[in-house]
C-alpha cells in the first residue's frame, strides 16, 4: 500500500524525479572517474571505465537501461502506459483531422441521441420530481374496477379511510384544476391543484415563505380559502413582493388568502404541467363544476400518490391497501362493489403525461440504439480503412518488438478517445435537447408545460456505459485485425481480389467491411420503414374521420362556473348566446356540450341498468356519457342510425331522454332497436330517443366502446364548450363572438377559438413526437449508411485500380466497368435491404400501440423505404463507379 502510494506520487512528479535520477547517476560517474584518476588512468579512460562499470559493459546505452528499469520500478506501469497511449492517441487523431472529425461526429450523433433519450426517460418517467424528498418512494394511486382494465380515480371518503387505515404508506392527493387568475384588471387562465393538507409536508417541500396547509384545512365545506402560490407566480405576477403573505388572490370569484410560496424548482406533481397555485381539499366545490363531492363515496375524482414509509416495499403496501379496500367493499356495497386500489411505480402513473409518452419514449430509445449501432458500424469501417493506411507504422512497431497485447491496448485507447470526445459532445447535445419535448405540445392558454430531461448521476453513469460499449463495438474488431498483421505478407504489396468477384478471393478485411455495410443498410432500412409507418399513421389521423366532422367546426370554452353564475342565470345566458351566435353571418349551426371530444377533461360516467339485460354477478355496467345541447349531432355531423336528435324541448321540465351509440345498443339490447326502451342512469330512468353512429371519443387508438348522450339541460353544467359550424375563419368568428359575449356580460373573458381539427391535432402530440424523432433519426441513419457505402465503394475502386486498368487495356468498355462497380454496390445494398426487411417485418409490430389504421406490414411504408434506400445507394455508388472507367490504364499498370 505504501509502495503504491509512493509510486502514485512519483507518477505525478515524473519530470522532477527524472532530473533527480540524472543528477544521482552523474554524481556516481564523477566519483568513479575521480577514483580512476587517482589510480592513474588518463581522464578519457577514467570516464570510460566508470561508464562501463555502471552500465554493465555497454556504455551509455547501459545507463539508459538503468534509467528505464528505474522508471519502471518507480511508477505504475499500467497507468503510465495508458497515459502514453492517450498522448499518442491524441497525436494520431490530430494527424488526420478529417477522419477524427467524421468519426467523432458519427459517434456524437449516436451517443448524444442515447443520452438525450435516457435523460428524458429519467426526467419524465422515473424521477420526474427532483424537488421532492424521497421521490423514489412515491407510488401512483389508481382505483380499479373488477372486470375493467386500467385505473381510474378514488372518492374522498375512500381516500380518507385508506389514509386512516394504512400503516405502510402516506397518501397524498393531487388533482389538477383550471381556473381564472385575476390580478387587478388582468384575467388569465391558470392551472393549479387541489391537494390534501399533508401535501407539502409529505413531499418534503418547504415553502420559501409562509407555510403549507395545516391538517384542519382539508375538511369543512368551503371553510378554508387559503392558497400556496408557485415561485414563478410570486416572482412574475406579484413581482416578488416580500409582504405577499396574508394578501388575497381571487380564484373563481372567491378571495383566497396567500399563506405560502413554494420553492423555486417545484412545479407540482403532475408530470407535464407546471402548477401556479395549490388549494386544500376543503375548497373543492369552488373549482369543480360537478358540485360538492367530499361526502360522496360514489364520486371518484381523486388522483394522487402513496409515499412508502421507510422499510416498506410496494408489495407489502399493496397487500395492506387491498385488504382495506376489501373491508370498504363489504361496508359500502352500493358504491364500492368490485372496487380496488393499485399502487403503481411512477412511470406507470395512469393520469398524466408520463403514461401518454411511455410508448413513444420506449420506441425512441430503440431507435437511438439502432442509430448508435449504425454509427458504430460506420466508425468501425473508417477505422478499418485507416488501419490500412497505418499498416506501415503498425508493421514497424511489431517488428521492433512491440507486443500484440500492447498494440491492441493502444488501438483501443484511440477508440476510447474518440468515443470520450463524442460522449462529451453527446452530453452537450442532450443538455441542449432537454426541453425539446415541450415544443411538440402546443401552448394553450393557462397551461404552463414542463417536460424536461434530467441529467443526473444515473444518466451520466449510463452514458459512460454507452460510451465504453460503443468503443468495444466499433473498436475491437479493427484493432484485432490491425494487430494481426502478417509481417511477411505486409512487405509484399496488397494483392487485391476482383470487384464483384467471388468473396473468397477478397481479403478478409474487405469482407468485413462489406458485412458492416450490410448491417448499416439493414438497420437504416428498419428505421426508414418505422418512420414511414408512423408518417402514414399520422396522415391517417389527419385525414381519418373520428366519427364526427372536424371540418368547418370551431370550438371555444364557456366557463360560467368560474364567473360565479347561478345555474338559472347560466341557462338563460347560454340560450341567449347560442341564439346570438347562430345569427352571426356564415354560421350554420351552434351546439353546446360539456366536454369536447379528445380532451383531457374526462367524460361523466355512471353505472347503468337496462330492462332485460342481466349483468354478470361481479359486473357493474358503467358507461361514459356526454351532456350535450340541442343540435349537437347536426353540428358535429354525427349520423343518427335511428330515432331523433336532442332538442331544446328536452329540458328540465320534460321527461328524461338519452341517445345511445351503436355499440351500447348492440351490447345491452342485443341488436334490437333501443328507441323507445329505457335505461337507468344513476338511479334515474331515461327514455332512449335515438341511436348515434359509433365515433371516437378520447383518442384515435381506442376500440369502439359504449357511449351515450344526455341533454345538457337535464344534467346541467356551468362549464361548457361551444361548437360552431361555419366556413368562416376562426379569427373572424372570434371577433364576432367576443362582441356577442361582451354584449351579454362585459365581465366575461372569451376563450381561445380553435378549429376542432386543431384541437384533435393537439391531442396527438405523442404520435407526432415519435414521427419527428423517427424521421430525424431515420434520415440520419440513411445518411450514415450512404456515407459508409460511398466510402467502401471509393476505396474498393482505388484499391482495384490495377485490375480495372488491366480490364480497360484488354478492351473492356467504360460501360462494362461502370456496370461492374455499380453491380457490386447494389448487391451490397440489396443484401442489406433483404436483411432489413426481414428485421422490420419482425419488429414493427412493436409500433402497434401507436399506429392508427396502418398495418405494421404496410406495403406502402416498405415500398417507400425501399425506394429511398435505392436512391441513396445509387447516389453513393455513382461517383466511385463513374470514376472507375476514367482510370488511366497505362499509369494504373505502371504504379
Amino acid at each position, binding site marked *: 500500500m*505504501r509502495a503504491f502510494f*509512493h509510486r502514485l506520487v512519483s507518477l505525478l512528479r515524473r519530470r522532477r524525479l527524472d532530473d533527480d535520477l540524472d543528477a544521482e547517476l552523474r554524481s556516481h560517474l564523477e566519483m568513479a572517474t575521480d577514483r580512476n584518476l587517482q589510480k592513474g588512468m588518463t581522464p578519457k579512460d577514467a570516464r570510460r571505465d566508470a561508464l562501463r562499470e*555502471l552500465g554493465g559493459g555497454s556504455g551509455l546505452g547501459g545507463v539508459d*537501461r538503468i534509467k528505464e528499469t528505474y522508471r519502471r520500478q518507480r511508477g505504475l506501469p499500467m497507468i503510465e502506459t495508458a497515459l502514453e497511449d492517450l498522448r499518442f492517441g491524441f497525436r494520431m487523431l490530430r494527424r488526420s483531422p478529417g477522419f477524427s472529425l467524421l468519426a467523432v461526429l458519427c459517434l456524437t450523433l449516436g451517443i448524444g441521441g442515447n443520452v438525450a433519450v435516457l435523460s428524458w426517460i429519467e426526467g419524465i418517467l422515473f424521477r420526474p420530481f427532483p424537488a421532492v424528498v424521497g421521490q423514489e418512494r412515491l407510488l401512483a394511486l389508481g382505483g380499479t374496477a373488477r372486470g375493467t382494465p386500467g385505473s381510474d380515480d378514488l372518492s374522498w371518503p375512500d381516500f380518507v379511510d385508506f389514509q386512516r387505515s394504512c400503516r405502510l404508506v402516506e397518501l397524498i392527493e393531487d388533482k389538477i384544476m383550471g381556473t381564472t387568475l385575476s390580478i387587478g384588471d388582468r384575467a388569465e387562465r391558470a392551472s393549479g391543484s387541489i391537494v390534501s393538507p399533508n401535501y407539502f409536508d409529505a413531499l418534503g417541500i418547504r415553502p420559501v415563505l409562509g407555510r403549507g396547509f395545516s391538517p384542519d384545512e382539508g375538511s369543512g365545506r368551503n371553510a378554508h380559502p387559503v392558497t400556496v402560490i408557485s415561485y414563478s407566480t410570486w416572482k412574475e405576477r406579484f413581482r416578488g413582493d416580500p409582504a405577499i403573505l396574508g394578501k388575497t388572490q381571487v380564484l373563481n370569484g372567491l378571495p383566497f388568502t396567500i399563506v405560502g410560496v413554494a420553492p423555486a424548482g417545484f412545479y407540482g406533481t403532475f408530470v407535464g404541467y407546471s402548477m401556479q397555485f395549490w388549494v386544500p381539499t376543503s375548497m373543492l366545490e369552488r373549482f369543480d363544476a360537478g358540485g360538492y363531492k367530499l361526502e360522496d363515496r360514489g364520486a371518484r375524482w381523486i388522483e394522487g400518490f402513496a409515499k412508502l414509509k421507510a422499510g416498506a416495499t410496494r408489495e407489502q403496501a399493496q397487500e395492506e391497501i387491498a385488504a382495506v379496500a376489501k373491508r370498504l367493499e363489504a361496508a359500502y356495497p352500493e358504491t364500492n362493489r368490485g372496487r380496488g386500489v393499485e399502487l403503481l411505480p411512477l412511470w406507470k402513473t395512469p393520469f398524466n403525461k408520463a403514461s401518454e409518452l411511455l410508448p413513444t419514449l420506449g420506441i425512441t430509445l430503440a431507435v437511438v440504439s439502432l442509430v448508435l449501432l449504425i454509427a458504430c458500424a460506420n466508425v468501425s469501417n473508417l477505422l478499418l480503412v485507416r488501419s490500412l493506411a497505418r499498416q506501415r507504422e503498425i508493421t514497424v512497431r511489431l517488428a521492433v518488438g512491440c507486443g500484440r497485447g500492447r498494440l491492441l491496448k493502444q488501438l483501443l485507447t484511440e477508440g476510447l478517445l474518440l468515443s470520450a470526445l463524442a460522449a462529451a459532445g453527446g452530453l452537450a447535445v442532450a443538455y441542449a435537447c432537454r426541453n425539446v419535448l415541450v415544443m411538440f405540445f402546443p401552448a394553450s392558454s393557462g397551461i404552463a408545460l414542463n417536460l424536461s430531461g434530467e441529467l443526473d448521476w444515473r444518466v451520466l453513469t449510463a452514458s459512460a456505459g454507452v460510451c465504453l460499449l460503443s468503443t468495444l463495438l466499433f473498436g475491437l474488431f479493427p484493432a484485432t485485425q490491425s494487430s494481426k498483421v502478417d509481417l511477411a505478407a505486409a512487405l509484399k504489396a496488397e494483392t487485391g481480389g476482383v470487384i464483384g468477384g467471388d468473396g473468397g478471393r477478397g481479403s478478409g478485411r474487405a469482407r468485413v467491411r462489406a458485412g458492416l455495410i450490410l448491417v448499416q443498410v439493414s438497420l437504416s432500412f428498419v428505421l426508414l420503414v418505422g418512420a414511414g409507418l408512423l408518417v402514414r399513421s399520422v396522415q391517417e389521423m389527419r385525414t381519418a374521420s373520428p366519427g364526427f366532422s372536424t371540418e368547418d367546426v370551431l370550438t371555444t370554452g364557456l366557463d360560467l362556473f368560474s364567473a360565479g353564475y347561478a345555474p338559472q342565470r347560466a341557462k338563460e345566458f347560454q340560450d341567449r348566446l347560442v341564439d346570438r351566435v347562430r345569427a352571426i353571418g356564415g354560421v350554420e349551426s351552434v351546439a353546446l356540450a360539456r366536454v369536447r371530444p379528445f380532451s383531457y377533461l374526462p367524460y361523466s360516467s355512471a353505472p347503468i341498468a337496462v330492462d332485460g339485460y342481466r349483468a354478470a354477478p361481479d359486473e357493474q355496467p358503467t358507461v361514459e356519457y356526454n351532456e350535450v345541447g340541442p343540435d349537437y349531432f347536426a353540428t358535429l355531423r354525427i349520423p343518427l342510425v335511428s330515432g331523433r336528435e336532442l332538442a331544446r324541448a328536452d329540458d328540465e321540465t320534460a321527461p328524461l331522454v338519452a341517445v345511445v351509440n351503436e355499440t351500447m345498443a348492440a351490447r345491452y339490447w342485443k341488436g334490437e332497436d333501443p328507441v323507445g326502451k329505457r335505461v337507468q342512469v344513476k338511479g334515474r330512468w331515461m327514455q332512449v330517443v335515438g341511436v348515434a353512429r359509433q365515433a371516437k371519443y378520447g383518442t384515435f387508438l381506442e376500440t369502439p366502446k359504449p357511449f351515450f348522450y344526455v341533454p345538457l339541460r337535464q344534467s346541467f353544467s356551468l362549464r361548457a364548450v361551444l361548437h360552431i359550424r361555419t366556413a368562416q375563419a376562426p379569427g373572424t368568428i372570434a371577433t364576432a363572438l367576443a362582441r356577442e359575449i361582451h354584449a351579454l356580460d362585459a365581465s366575461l373573458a372569451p376563450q381561445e377559438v380553435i378549429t376542432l381539427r386543431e384541437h384533435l391535432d393537439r391531442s396527438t402530440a405523442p404520435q407526432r413526437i415519435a414521427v419527428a424523432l423517427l424521421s430525424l433519426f431515420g434520415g440520419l441513419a440513411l445518411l450514415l449508411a450512404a456515407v459508409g457505402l460511398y466510402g467502401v465503394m471509393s476505396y474498393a475502386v482505388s484499391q482495384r485500380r490495377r485490375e480495372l486498368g488491366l480490364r480497360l487495356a484488354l478492351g473492356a468498355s467504360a460501360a462494362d466497368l461502370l456496370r461492374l462497380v455499380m453491380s457490386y454496390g447494389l448487391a451490397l445494398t440489396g443484401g442489406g435491404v433483404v436483411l432489413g426487411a426481414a428485421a422490420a417485418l419482425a419488429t414493427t409490430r412493436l409500433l402497434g400501440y401507436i399506429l392508427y389504421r396502418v398495418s405494421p406490414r404496410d406495403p406502402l411504408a416498405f415500398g417507400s423505404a425501399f425506394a429511398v434506400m435505392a436512391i441513396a445507394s445509387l447516389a453513393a455508388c455513382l461517383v466511385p463507379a463513374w470514376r472507375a472507367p476514367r482510370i488511366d490504364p497505362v499509369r494504373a499498370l505502371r504504379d
Partner: protein
Amino acid sequence: MTSSKAEVLPGTLDLLVLKTLDVMGPMHGFGIAQRIQQVSEELLQLNQGTLYPALLRLEQRGWIASQWGVSENNRKAKYYSLTRAGRRQLQEEVASWERMSAAINRLLRTS
C-alpha cells in the same frame, strides 16, 4: 564460468545494502557499491546497474530514506540511511539468511 568472481545472488542485494548502511551510517550509491566490493575482497561482482533500482525499491518500502548532501570531495550526492523499519527488516533478513545458509551447509556436508 572461468572467473573466480561470483555474481551477487539474486535477492541478496537488499540484504547487502541494508547491512552496509547499518555498519557505515548514511552513504551515497557509489560509496555503497565500493564498500560491497571492498568488503567482499572483490569476490562479489556487483552489477552497479541493478543498485539504483534496488535503492528505489528499499526506499519505496520505507526501509531506507534519502537526502541530498555533499560528498567528502565536495560533490553533490544523494545519501541513503537506514530507517527504524529498515533496521527491523535487516534483523529479519540476517536471521533468515543464517537459517538458510546453515541448512544448505548441512546438506552439503552430508553428501
